[in-house]
């Protein structure tokens, strides 16, 4: 009898030794004369348990957590192939509290399937949503997306259905779908996990988007910091093409669609949609002025749907199950689920897909287990480098686009970075400006020059030079950047800076000489 064993081939798992574990398991099995089938799945998202290995016993998948290559001989001795008891045994994967309490609308296939096995994908609803989309017709799909209330998960939160409608209604022989996989925000990795764990699901999502708006070509703009993702996604596109799921007249539908995979080159601003389009055209990633919107004049001047990976990947189930089902989850104008990412100084970091309305405290304490260091939480940055630092007394804020705006913060792409009380927040304010100076595309002055001046002013505040005068100057600089920058890079860099001034002003006095 052949025993199936799952070892993730996903960046986080591999970064802590999953490849070595897979090799050690193969070697031990050989020594024990045991027949095994090693499946390299995606991650379930419980990164704190990686490498997380599963053994199929009967109809259960028994999980073992934090497995190192050195642990493998001991696991075999403990009867690991029969799901034997061991201190690293976590029990059946579908009984792990961190996972079972989630609402996996978008990430349901991640961890479950072998990402590069087309048969496995098909056995788990693969391309069913595309077939349903063809039945519904383009407008039917757009109506379902509108009804779902799905908003852009890249950060801006723009209603996806309205964007799709605009592209569909704009005349043009050639239209495009551009998938934004330039996941640059620190503290975020949901796009990566989806692409590594369910790449064929993303391909299906793009096919549906293309079908709905009348686009025959899709682009994925993937950041170069994700080399493993690049290999997996490239292979998945190849598989889909070979099987006729990309190309002409897909599945006899009369619909033609293909996908080209592009790599970014280390520019944060290229995650901004118009800069991304410039980069896809082979140019510098300079932000374009809007209007025209990309939906009207996007890639190569053609009508283009630009959506984030997670936005697109939420669509197949909306088509399959109905927009009303998605809209029934969440709160207020924040419908459905978001894949939150627990990161930084947190005990149980990973991906948690939940309905909107869950509070920061539930995510950080119940799921995350508090800080990794065991010290009190001092600040939480939500939504990447342009997100405000939220103090510990505001952790009861529900995750909801509008509720976050009300406290001067943003949900963004759902990344949650926790800092403990040893962090000096003045350094974080300085870093916000420094990062903007490094990454500014340079097209507009407030961002290009303002960020450098911001670093200088903060440096003077930290050394105690005319602190009040420099405080006023910094606030004025923040006003200018917010009001006059072309895009969110310069326009929102002041958010983390202002939050530090507001909640952690005392850190400026103690920051002298801490850095460099």
């Amino acid at each position, binding site marked *: 009898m052949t025993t199936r064993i799952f070892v993730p081939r996903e960046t986080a798992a591999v*970064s802590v030794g999953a490849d070595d574990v897979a090799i050690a398991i193969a070697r031990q099995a050989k020594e024990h004369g045991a027949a095994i089938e090693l499946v390299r799945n995606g991650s379930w998202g419980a990164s704190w348990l990686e490498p997380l290995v599963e053994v199929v016993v009967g109809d259960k998948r028994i999980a073992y957590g934090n497995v190192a290559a050195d642990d493998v001989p001991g696991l075999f001795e403990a009867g690991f192939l029969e799901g034997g008891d061991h201190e690293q045994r976590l029990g059946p994967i579908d009984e792990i509290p961190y996972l079972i309490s989630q609402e996996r609308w978008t990430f349901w296939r991640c961890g479950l399937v072998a990402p590069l096995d087309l048969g496995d994908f098909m056995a788990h609803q693969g391309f069913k949503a595309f077939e349903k989309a063809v039945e519904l017709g383009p407008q039917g799909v757009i109506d379902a997306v509108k009804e779902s209330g799905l908003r852009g998960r890249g950060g801006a939160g723009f209603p996806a259905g309205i964007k799709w409608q605009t592209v569909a209604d704009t005349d043009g022989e050639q239209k495009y779908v551009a998938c934004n996989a330039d996941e640059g925000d620190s*503290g975020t990795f949901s796009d990566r996990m989806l692409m590594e764990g369910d790449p064929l699901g993303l391909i299906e999502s793009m096919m549906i988007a293309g079908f709905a708006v009348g686009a025959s070509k899709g682009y994925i703009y993937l950041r170069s910091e994700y080399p493993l993702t690049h290999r997996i996604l490239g292979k998945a596109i190849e598989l889909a093409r070979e099987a006729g799921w990309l190309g002409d007249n897909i599945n006899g539908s009369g619909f033609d669609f293909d996908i080209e995979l*592009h*790599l970014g080159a*280390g520019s944060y601003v290229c995650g901004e949609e118009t800069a991304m389009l410039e980069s896809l055209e*082979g140019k510098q990633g300079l932000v374009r002025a809007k209007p025209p919107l990309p939906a009207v004049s996007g890639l190569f001047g053609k009508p283009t749907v630009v959506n984030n990976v997670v936005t697109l990947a939420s669509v197949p189930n909306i088509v399959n199950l109905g927009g009303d089902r998605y809209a029934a989850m969440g709160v207020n104008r924040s419908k459905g689920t978001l894949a939150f990412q627990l990161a930084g100084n947190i005990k149980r*970091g990973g*991906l948690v897909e939940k309905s909107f309305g869950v509070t920061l405290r539930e995510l950080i304490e119940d799921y995350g287990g508090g800080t990794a260091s065991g010290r009190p939480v001092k600040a939480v940055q939500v939504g990447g480098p342009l997100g405000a630092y939220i103090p510990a007394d505001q952790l009861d804020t529900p995750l909801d686009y509008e509720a976050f705006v009300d406290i001067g913060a943003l949900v963004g792409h759902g990344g949650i970075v926790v800092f403990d009380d040893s962090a000096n927040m003045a*350094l974080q304010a300085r870093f916000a400006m420094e990062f903007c100076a490094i990454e500014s595309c340079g097209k507009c002055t407030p961002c290009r020059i303002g960020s450098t001046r911001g670093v200088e002013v903060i440096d003077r505040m930290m050394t105690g030079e005319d602190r009040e005068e420099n405080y006023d100057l910094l606030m004025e600089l923040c006003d200018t950047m917010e009001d006059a920058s072309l895009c969110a890079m310069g326009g929102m860099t002041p958010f983390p800076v202002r939050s530090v001034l507001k909640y952690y002003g005392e850190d400026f006095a103690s920051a002298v000489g801490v850095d460099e």
Partner: protein
Amino acid sequence: MTHQDYDRQAATEIIAGFDARPEMLVQILHGFLDRFGWISEDAIRQLAEELNVSRADVHGVVSYYHDFRTTAPGRHIVKLCAAEACQAMGSRELEAHAKTRLAGNDVTIEPVYCLGNCACSPAVMIDGRTYGRVSKERFDEIVDGLGGVRT
């Protein structure tokens, strides 16, 4: 990392692999980076010729993107994540440690702003491989296993 010296024929092949389409410039430059390790003046000149664009255009793109280094890298490339999630887990201290540990070696050290491994911070990328939960001790272990780095 094994990079080759610049070779016009190899460069032409990379360009031809993208049908010499000017809109593929960023992708072609990645091809150059993989093969040669960096983007030389010779490369910029050849790209301009074969894509039929100006050298200024190529130079503009090369200098815009962080990935496209214009000097030859060391034998190994160590990218240290310097973004917020890793900062929260001591990346500033790790950076100082790494620089001390690798001083005098033929290693290129660069900051990177997020490797997307933020639940396993701090993270580093060495010769294209991402490592997570990198304590100072683990960093030393990884570095000790690299060829040509003094222990």
